[in-house]
């Protein structure tokens, strides 16, 4: 009997590999190979107009002394913190509203979800029109409401450009947070709230003692996805400000891209590796803090 069961087992493993093979192949082609390729390129001088040469860690040493690299890190960190915070805040409010049953809920749900369905580059173009100096709706509102006599150059100063980008990103990705939180909310048994109401708790107590603790793993998932996505922000900024004014809104990804454009693939790769490390580091951190692995078990 024993050899037989072993054979079955082996067959099972083989079958498992077979069925998983499309996923494994796709992961290899689209994730593993590019990541390794970028890592390797980062150790080389790979400049289109110069012969290739192995440099060891020289590209990374250069990064350390590169003020503009640190500026882009600073911008990215600030952007991630502010935008993810707002997204979580608004996402929570929308999720709590949508979790109730009321007439028109379906329509409201669709309205809230629409921004998520619009491709990044297109939503960036939409916002570009809204912020436009000469005919943008923001300047129309600002002038006609008497807040300012002259039109404001929204994308023209570092601070207003920063917040313009944050607003566009929050508008675009809050729906994502909403959907995840909504899914989490729907798993919380209604009886818990009923019981708590009998015990005479108010709405804030119910939120902080029931909703928040039970929602914590889901919040971590939402934060995880949003943070990693925000760290890699590229398209929105590329279209909206191109990294300006004066390089003040250059994210790390955009900074890496600029080197690719100038033909320095080695240095660009080194910067990309940093983005990769930061994003994976954050993922690990969240998983540890959120005790996500235990939860799955």
């Amino acid at each position, binding site marked *: 009997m024993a050899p037989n069961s072993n054979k079955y087992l082996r067959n099972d493993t083989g079958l498992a590999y077979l069925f998983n093979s*499309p996923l494994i192949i*796709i992961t290899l082609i689209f994730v593993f190979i590019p990541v390794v390729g970028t890592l390797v390129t980062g150790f080389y001088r790979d*400049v*289109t*107009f*110069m*012969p290739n040469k192995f440099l060891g860690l020289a590209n990374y040493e*250069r990064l350390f002394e590169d003020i503009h690299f640190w500026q882009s890190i600073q911008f990215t960190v600030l952007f991630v913190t502010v935008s993810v915070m707002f997204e979580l805040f608004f996402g929570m409010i929308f999720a709590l509203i949508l979790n109730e049953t009321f007439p028109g809920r379906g329509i409201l749900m669709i309205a809230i979800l629409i921004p998520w369905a619009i491709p990044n580059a297109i939503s960036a173009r939409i916002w570009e029109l809204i912020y436009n100096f000469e005919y943008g709706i923001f300047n129309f509102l600002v002038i006609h409401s008497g807040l300012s006599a002259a039109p404001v*150059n929204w994308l*023209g*100063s570092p601070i207003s450009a920063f917040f313009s980008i944050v607003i566009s990103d929050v508008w675009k990705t809050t729906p994502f947070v909403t959907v995840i939180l909504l899914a989490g909310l729907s798993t919380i048994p209604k009886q818990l709230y009923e019981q708590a109401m009998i015990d005479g708790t108010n709405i804030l107590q119910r939120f902080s003692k029931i909703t928040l603790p039970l929602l914590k793993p889901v919040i971590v998932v939402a934060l995880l996805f949003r943070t990693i996505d925000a760290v890699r922000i590229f398209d929105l900024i590329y279209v909206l400000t*191109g990294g*300006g*004014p*004066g*390089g003040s809104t250059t994210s790390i990804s955009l900074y890496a891209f600029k080197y*690719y*454009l*100038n*033909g*320095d*693939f080695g240095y660009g790769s080194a910067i990309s590796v940093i983005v990769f490390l930061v994003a994976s580091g954050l993922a690990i951190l969240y998983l540890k803090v959120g005790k996500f692995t235990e939860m799955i078990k």
Partner: protein
Amino acid sequence: MKKKYLKWLIILLLMLIGIQCGNSSEQFTIWIGGSPRELDYWQQIITEFNKQTGYNLQLVRQPTYSDQRRQSLVIDLEAKQPNPDLFLMDVVWLNQFAASNWLQPLDKYVKDNDFQLHQFFQSILNSVDKYKGNLYALPVFLDVALLYYRKDLLEKFGYSEPPKTWSELLNEADKIQKIERKNNPNFYGFLWEGAQYEGLVCTFLEFTSSHGGGIMNNGKVDLYRKSNIEALQFMQDLIHKYKISPPSTYTEMKEEEVRLSFQRGNALFERNWTYAWKLHQSNGSPVKGKVGLTILPHFKGDSSVSTLGGWHIGISRYSDEKEKAWKFVKFITSFKSQKKLILNVGWNPSRKDVYKDKQVIAEAPQIKELYYVLKHTIARPTVPYYSQLSDIIQRYVNDCLSGKISPSTALQKMQNQIKEVEKIYGTE
């Protein structure tokens, strides 16, 4: 359900692979970007070429912005793709493209008996189209910076000619601005490009070179010198001391901002590229018929210069249709095509004989002045890592214009940072 998804996924993947493999190398393409109007005109030219030759050259439309155009070319050339066969390059990319070995040398082709290389401006070919002795590209149209002035205002105040030196410009602008302000509080004497972008490198190059300075000196970057400090000081003073240029010069003034403001009648002088001429003269323009153009002024004792711009055509080294591609290069740089370009779209020809054509002079009289300016052009540094140099120059010149740092600090910082860049990209 899952099986069905898998099936579709596999089909999708195969399709993606199919698209990659099916990238039919038999195609014969030229990649050009620009405004829709320009591209429509290119389509006409290409259709005419195909009719004449029986080839099937296809226009691949690139984005409008020059950085995006460069990006799509860099990706395909670095991947050694057989397409594009032909493409247009901004004058400042030429060195990077040639040094990266992406361009087919044209020396063999220009020896054609019926090709008139002598009709091109030799100084331009030598300074930008040649790399290490080989010819890699040919200019399709040229661009230069000019001084536009309000003829009517100069006449009104008794000046018969536009200023020749910067101090003349300053005096006239100062005097006229004071009086014109009474009617128009937005009026400024002199508008120029000072925002942090590529155009600032051009204005910086013009101010410094018209004082005997410049970016390069004997093939080396030499920024920290007396002439440059004085010229940069003058640029700063135009905004902060003499106040004939607005504070928005260093925050938002790019060519379109400069053009629009001048066109609304808010300025006496304007430094801009040749394209502004046609727009100033268009119907509905408040300054129509009141504008003149001339070469940029210079500092006393030195001579005027204008930054060279424009687009050049090259053949990809990886093209599989090089002979046919050369036919198109010849076609577009021919007298006939070049004449059409100036008459139909207002692009300045790269051939000298077009500037002497009677019909062209009659229909586009500004061309006489342009011919003169073209002989006084200066190219931006021709190094493959130009974009890095440009970034550094833009940043510090802009900081200096805003008054944050002094001209000598700015120039010293630029010089030091460019040395770092040269250490990385300038060896071997």
